């Protein structure tokens, strides 16, 4: 089975303000983007399971056609730089997304 990183060109995470983390999954071909979009695999439920958070903490999970992208935004478990937090920019939280398994079509 293939993983998302074999389809996507960019998979990244970053702060969207100090209280949210946002993830971008970007494709460089419409075909790859449409394959993932049509598979319906990227859902708030999946994101919650991957990161071990509640469904309610996934604030946004949607596709954005103009950029051939998916956008996911979650509430940060701890705000940027508060005690218990280790990634001030939030830019190293993306890795579990790369391993999302994509069923063969």
């Amino acid at each position, binding site marked *: 089975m293939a993983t998302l990183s074999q389809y996507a060109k960019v998979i990244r995470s970053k702060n*969207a303000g100090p209280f949210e983390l946002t993830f971008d999954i970007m494709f460089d071909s419409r075909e790859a983007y449409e394959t993932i979009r049509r598979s319906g695999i990227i859902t708030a439920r999946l994101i919650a399971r991957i990161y071990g958070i509640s469904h309610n903490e996934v604030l946004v999970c949607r596709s954005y056609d*103009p*950029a051939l*992208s998916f956008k996911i935004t979650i509430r940060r478990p*701890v*705000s940027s*730089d508060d*005690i*218990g937090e*280790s990634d001030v920019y939030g830019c190293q939280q993306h890795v579990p997304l790369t391993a999302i398994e994509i069923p063969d079509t």
Partner: protein
Amino acid sequence: MKQLTGLAPSGSLGSGFNLPAFRSALDSGPDFIGQDAGSTDMGPYYLGTATPFLPRASYKHDLGLMLDAAREREIPLLVGSCLTSGTRPQLDLAVDIVTELARERKHSFTMAVIDAELDKGFLKRRLGDGGIESLGPDEDLTPDLIDRCPHIVAQMGVEPFVHALDAGADVIVAGRACDDAVFAAVPVMNGFDKGLSLHMGKILECAGLSAIPCDLAEPLVGRIERDGFLVWPGHPDHRCTSLSVAGHSLYERGDPGIQPGPGGINDLDHATYREVDRRTVRVTGSRFIPDPDYRVKLEGAELAGFRSIVIVGVRDPVLIGQIDGLLQEMRERADTRFADCEPGAFRIDFHVYGKNAVMRHLEPSTDVAPHEIGILINVVASTQDLASEVSMYVRGSLQHASYPGIIATAGNLAYPFSPFSVPVGPAYRFAVYHLLPLKDPCECFPMTLVQV
């Protein structure tokens, strides 16, 4: 006016930028230069202490190049979120640098200084009017919370910039500002569509991050027209593509289509991105939808305490296998040893590098067996002395702790250097991140004109 051209030298003031590319960008005849000079991204420390992220000389270097270019062409220079968090002391530093540069390089101009640090009395009086909404903190905005934050800033929209330009400013040095507003002000003032102007501002604020190769230190040019805008990089060999520009529209935003800001939402769901030549993209369809209320975002950081850290390494597999339990034991020992301190006087955090230090709560891989780990002992306490004392106690306890199966009884920790405990200074946390309704978009952003 059919079109207006804006130039963003770099995505972050003080990081330097590519000079030949800046010169080529200047050849396209910009009508203004805009520069973002701050963010909350680097953490609450800068907002709490009102100190800049970079050394003064780094800002002076970049500002000197921009000021020379702007004055030579007699076009406005707009700098927002000076210098890092947009507080008054950081704004004063920017004013000091610009004034010094003008004197050294014999420029004279009208400078507008726009303050974004809120008067606490004003803010407390506004509490009674209601309508203040948290964008993250659990705590409501109260007089007590306001007093706990040394500096509270509001993010200005385009209006205070337009007000300064109307008043004849050649150079605008502003406190905390929306990144896009720095670039949207001149277009909005000249009657260009607000949705397109803000969207172009969103693309320009990070400069070369919207291009290929993606580089914050590469200049970017935007040209707004009546029904769209163009963007291209200053560097002749770099390119903007429909995907690089559309992709940047998502960057650091919670939702790609619905982007809220002061006074309304910028709707990018119907935006189109089209490559008009090898390196230029034309964007259309962005649409600003005004809110009934004009609201600005407030930012404030409160003192969390004083931090001391110890960095150590562990190579022993028997110890690594039991590290979680052992660290919990160290917390309990410290609680007993410092039982006479007030509750909450110190907090101990362990960042176990090699295990789950980077993702912490979000880490799905929990069954790893690293051959070595690094432990950052991070103590935040009510005083610097207490933080150092607790951090040294914890590392001393861990150094000589016994555990089942121990084979090395001479010590558990490898220190990369001495001294072991490093006092880091004050630690802050973001505590104010709320929306405040305004009666007038300029009411908490007083502007001063200075003849330089």
